[in-house]
């Protein structure tokens, strides 16, 4: 059997593996045993192609994808917890070794459970008796598999989380963040200020932890050894999007990182997304308006769905509106994406969308003169586009239907909107309301101010960076010394609901397989007097 384990034991070879292959985990392992084992573990399909059958708690029959190994023991094989249920790790190097505190010096700690072997594992999987001879947790199904299937499963388990992920050394853990040369320099600076100061401060405050990691008492090694100093690398991308992949490869080759924290890539993240997936590299919570929406991916975690979220939100809010006219800027990729997503969502439910190009004066004039006035309008444009449009629509706002704008395009400063129009305008707003946001972000803003790095013009950029940093720190604490990227991602999926710190959203939530932390939206109107946004709907998800 051609085990990944032997390949990655040599550092050089592992580097070659990582950078030459398109996908770390799918490459180079062509063994049939492994493939069939993975098929059972991840899909619940037996080597003969049939669905595996199992029984839980005596008589609850399950089969196939209803309850497979991977749903509970997870992709990393490192297990999980849910409520009061603990799902133990079953990655080969843990399962086939005695379970005891990991210490390097005598005295040897007590053995909690002896190493599993072929016989005891078969007994565990088929009869629910663990290596100690005790009955297992009733949630563990008893699977009907034979010995040859077990062998295949064992070869797959051997490959799970069996070597530390790249980007981690004995003393340091490396992270990167990704920014574009084409971003506004002050935005890039606002982001880097947060990341750099936070990591600098963290390393300073935990400086004694390095000593403790080195000289930990034997019985606390497992607790102190995992400490690593953080190192941040800024991956600055320039030029055409098509060249980003090579630039990222070059950065990665120069210094592999464990994960990418945040980043600022307003348009074009799908290229980065692909790179992260191909290299099994966690890319956490970037600030982007164009995330990759396909949910099958694993390594990219997002804050929200970008412009697609605005489009989906409006389509859901306008559920009872049979016909809508949308105006967008075909020269602007963001505006076009929003319009496409909106059109798709509307037509999917049998509703009509009329498209008008923002810069086609003929169309806009026709819209202004239409009798009766046009249907509900949706405008995917920033301040200048909206201003020009309102001017061309004439001075009869009372007769036009409601106009929906997106705060992602327009911003939340609405004082430039002509007063006559304010009554007719609504915003879709996918963050906490501006009047509450200051209070909501008090904790991070206070820290930025104390470090003199606060930039009110880049509020969301800085808040997102801070959120990503905190999530990274918490997840690292939870994975202890098990620096496996898959496990790291699983921990984040698991803990987002419980985070004590805030983001620009009223609430965030994730779960295994979910990739977008915030899904909700507000519909807001413009307050006539002060010109600020006031919500007219609750925070809800499309």
């Amino acid at each position: 059997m051609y085990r990944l384990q032997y390949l990655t034991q040599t550092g050089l070879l592992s580097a070659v593996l990582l950078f030459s292959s398109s996908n770390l985990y799918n490459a180079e392992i062509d063994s049939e045993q492994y493939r069939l084992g993975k098929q059972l573990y991840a899909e619940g399909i037996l080597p003969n192609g049939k669905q595996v059958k199992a029984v839980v708690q005596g008589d609850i029959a399950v089969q196939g994808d209803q309850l497979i190994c991977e749903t509970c023991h997870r992709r990393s094989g490192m297990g999980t917890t849910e409520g009061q249920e603990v799902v133990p790790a079953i990655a080969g190097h843990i399962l086939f070794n005695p379970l005891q505190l990991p210490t390097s010096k005598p005295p040897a700690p007590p053995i909690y459970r002896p190493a599993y072997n072929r016989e005891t594992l078969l007994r565990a999987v088929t009869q629910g008796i663990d290596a100690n001879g005790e009955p297992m947790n009733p949630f563990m199904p008893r699977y009907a598999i034979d010995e040859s299937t077990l062998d295949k499963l064992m070869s797959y388990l051997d490959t799970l989380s069996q070597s530390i992920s790249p980007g981690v050394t004995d003393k340091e853990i490396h992270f990167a963040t990704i920014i574009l040369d084409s971003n506004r320099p002050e935005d890039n600076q606002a982001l880097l200020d947060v990341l750099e100061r936070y990591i600098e401060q963290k390393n300073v405050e935990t400086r004694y932890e390095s000593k403790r990691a080195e000289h930990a008492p034997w019985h606390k090694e497992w607790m102190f050894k995992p400490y690593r100093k953080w190192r941040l690398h800024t991956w600055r991308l320039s030029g055409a999007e098509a060249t980003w992949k090579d630039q990222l490869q070059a950065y990665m080759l120069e210094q592999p990182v464990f994960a990418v924290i945040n980043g600022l890539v307003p348009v074009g993240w799908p290229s980065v997304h692909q790179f992260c997936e191909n290299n099994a590299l966690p890319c956490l919570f970037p600030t982007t308006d164009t995330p990759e929406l396909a949910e099958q991916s694993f390594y990219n975690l997002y804050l929200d769905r970008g412009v697609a979220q605005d489009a989906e939100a409006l389509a859901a809010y306008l559920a009872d509106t049979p016909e809508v006219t949308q105006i967008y800027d075909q020269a602007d990729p963001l505006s076009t994406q929003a319009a496409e997503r909106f059109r798709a969502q509307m037509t999917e439910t049998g509703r009509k969308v009329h498209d008008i190009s923002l810069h086609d004066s003929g169309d806009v004039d026709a819209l202004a003169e239409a009798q009766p006035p046009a249907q509900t309008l949706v405008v995917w444009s920033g301040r200048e586009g909206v201003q020009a449009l309102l001017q061309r629509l004439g001075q009869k706002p009372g007769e036009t239907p409601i106009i929906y704008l997106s705060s992602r395009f327009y911003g939340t400063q609405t004082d430039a909107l002509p007063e006559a129009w304010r009554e007719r305008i609504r915003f879709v707003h996918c963050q906490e309301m501006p009047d509450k946001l200051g209070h909501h972000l008090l904790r991070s803003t206070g820290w930025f101010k104390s470090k003199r790095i606060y930039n009110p013009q880049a509020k969301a950029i800085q808040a997102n960076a801070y959120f990503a940093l905190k999530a990274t720190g918490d997840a690292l604490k939870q994975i202890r010394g098990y620096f496996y990227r898959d496990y790291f991602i699983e921990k984040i999926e698991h803990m987002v609901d419980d985070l004590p710190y805030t983001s620009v959203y009223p609430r965030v939530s994730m779960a295994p397989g979910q990739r977008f932390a915030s899904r909700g939206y507000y519909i807001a109107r413009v307050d006539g007097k002060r010109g600020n946004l006031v919500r007219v709907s609750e925070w809800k998800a499309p």
Partner: protein
Amino acid sequence: MDNRVEQSQPRYAWKLGLLGMFLLPGVCAAWETAPFDDARASAVFKLDCVTHPQSTNTPSDRFTVAMNEMDHSAHDHHAHHMMMMKQSGYQVKQASYSIPDVDLTSHLGESVNLPELLAMDRPVMLNFIFTTCTTICPVLSASFHQVQGLLGEDDPVAMISITIDPEYDTPERLKAYAQRFEAGEGWTFYTGSYEDVVAVEKAFDIFRGSKMNHEPITLIRGQGAASEWKRIDGLASAEDIVKEYHATLNPH
């Protein structure tokens, strides 16, 4: 890592260690030579847990305590009850709940008022799940499927599963989930707004802050019993659920 409290490192630590090296052999020698009777010997040498002196102390207990950053609740009697409950599977109690006035949407897209739904003149079986849940919900859902099979198509029971992750679990996702667990007629999945679902969770005392903390709970209500519920905490087999169900319908 970042919330660990910095411990002071006394400069005299090595001196203490040195002292210990001289003293310890003497103490050990004293223990070895002292003429203890058996009872006294066991009293001296028993490695009791400091915070819970009378508790059991197997290697596996000590491991659990150590792995939980010296959290001694594993010795806790309540925890032992929990463990026993886990082994036997489940615990049953009677409870009365007042249903909040909220509207929910089914996996078929129908909107219903929850109090009206639960006021129907049929027995009800209720649980809480979410579609991306890994460990507990698949088993709960598989058990509902099994129960449905055991009771047969003619049974009047209305089976209800309410998602505790309403922002992700749209009616479409619930529909796919219903297909995955082969839900038959009479088993409906519901979602709603976040606030409404939390209100329902709180009303049935299953709200645990985050969906990741949820517990396996099955609720059974007899025909015409307005708010009297039988609450099954833990994982019951399908046969046990059917048994409890029949006991609810025919208390005598």
